[in-house]
């Protein structure tokens, strides 16, 4: 659905993006992460045909948006830091306007706009001018504008920024639903817990280069490594703990950590017998930890 290969962009002496390649299949949510100034927005603008790459190619459904503007018919975008909508028009008028501007017929756009307002929970605000809507509502409306023309690919730059908890969860659910419908979604966000909940794949960009890419579960698994949490009913006495330290047990109890392979874990559990166990589990990592490790290392 989206194929971007070898994208390069330089502004004067600053190399903003260097050799970035991304691909997205139907139904996939790709979290595109990176610190401020890493090249996320520059990449997104190149994908959307708003910025020419110095080198590299972009294909949306097989078409190049830089040569064929009708490729944009397949793309919907919520761009960060932008209003994305006209403040002097109502929510309904904005949706109809942008629907037609993206190639829908007027009657179809009017019908679709009403459905989207319902879906976004904004039906009551249909006839309210955008300048009177809260920031959260404006953000939801921007998402609605991006969805108006049934695009197969969505570029969502910080779609939950500034939303209250309930609205953010609603937008998250919408993103999940859209992915289930088969839309390909590229999501950038600094809210890593949102990215972890939504993304099937992730890519981290740092100083213009992709430094990590992979399926979310695989990446998290890889970074979790061979760590196990061992929780006992009561802490071990000092002499027993001292003996078990030699087998790799760490911590002061009653929760301990074991770092090592499966065989070593069984040896440790054998040595612990018959001390009452409460829980043994493989330690999990979260995206924040991965992000900090990768960005710090890069």
């Amino acid at each position, binding site marked *: 659905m989206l194929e971007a290969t070898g994208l390069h*962009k330089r*502004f004067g002496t600053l190399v903003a993006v260097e050799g970035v390649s991304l691909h997205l299949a139907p139904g996939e949510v790709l979290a595109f992460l990176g610190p401020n100034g890493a090249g996320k927005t*520059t990449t997104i*603008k190149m994908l*959307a*045909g*708003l*910025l*020419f790459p110095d080198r590299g190619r972009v294909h949306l459904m097989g078409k190049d948006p*830089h040569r064929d*503007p*009708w*490729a*944009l*018919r397949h*793309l919907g*975008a919520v*761009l960060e*830091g*932008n*209003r*994305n*909508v*006209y*403040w*002097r*028009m109502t929510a309904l*008028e904005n949706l*109809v*306007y*942008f629907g*037609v*501007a*993206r*190639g*829908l*017929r*007027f009657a179809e*756009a009017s019908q679709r706009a009403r459905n989207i307002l319902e879906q976004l929970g904004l039906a009551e605000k249909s006839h309210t*001018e955008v300048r009177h809507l809260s920031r959260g509502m404006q953000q939801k409306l921007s998402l609605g*504008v991006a969805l108006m023309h049934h695009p197969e690919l969505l570029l969502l730059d910080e779609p939950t920024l500034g939303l209250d908890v309930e609205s953010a969860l609603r937008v998250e659910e919408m993103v999940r639903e859209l992915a289930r419908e088969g839309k390909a979604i590229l999501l950038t966000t600094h809210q890593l817990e949102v990215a972890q909940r939504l993304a099937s794949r992730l890519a981290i960009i740092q100083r213009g280069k992709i430094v990590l890419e992979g399926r979310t579960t695989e990446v998290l698994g890889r970074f979790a490594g061979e760590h196990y949490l061992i929780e006992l009913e009561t802490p071990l006495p000092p002499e027993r703990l001292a003996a078990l330290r030699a087998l790799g047990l760490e911590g002061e109890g009653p929760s301990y950590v074991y770092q090592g392979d499966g065989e070593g874990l069984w040896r440790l559990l054998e040595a612990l017998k018959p001390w009452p166990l409460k829980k043994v589990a493989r330690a999990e990592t979260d995206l924040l930890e991965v992000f900090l490790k990768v960005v710090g290392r890069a």
Partner: protein
Amino acid sequence: MLDLFWVEFKRSWLNLRRYPSEFVGAVVTFSILFLLLFLGARFLAGPSAEFGERTEALLAGFLLWTLTLFSYSSLSFGLSEEAQTGTLEQVFLTPYGPIPLLLVRNLAGLGTQLLLMGTIALVLLLITGARLSFTPLLLLPIMTVLLGGYGLGFAMASLALLFKRVQQLVGISQFLLIFLLQYPLEGSGWLAKLGYFLPLVPGADLTRQMMAKEATLDWGLLGLALINGLAYLALGIVAFSRAVRAAKRRGLLFGY
């Protein structure tokens, strides 16, 4: 495209209906401006000066200037405003491409511009007691002036896209429009001949003659005015198209 025209027309109409103070403000400002020019000219000419037919000519030229000014400046002001408020990129995400969309936008905004010019005309006719001739055929030379105005508008919008803050330049260049709209085509010297090649001049001359002197439509001059208007529109669009490519290359579509 028809649907696009309809939503653009609705957008400009909604702006007018929801913010009537801007419309009233424009009518009052332009009316006062004309009266100041008119009274100023009378003061300079002395109390015994009789303007006679010249009032009509002055008024016709002034009304044409207001209409051309809107067609000329609305695009660059609009783009600057959209770059500032953050809707410009969404406009550029249209599969129609920015130029067809902006052309439709110009055409759709014509209705409100004509309404504004009509209201200013009515107010000034009532105040000055002047009489102007408005025949339906007058729309033809006005259209040729508007074509040229939109062409210059696209050229100025190119600068707005690349340099963003061009309001000062638009303000100063209004006076260039006055010069072009009042440029005399009469005579046989090279200056008169040059007028046929300058933007707006043939259409403006024809419009002035028809409005102020009740002259009949000169079809030959109308043909030349049409060629002139289309040529400047094409030049403006070419300049704008190059500016869009430069803006996309340099990352100037976003940020203000």
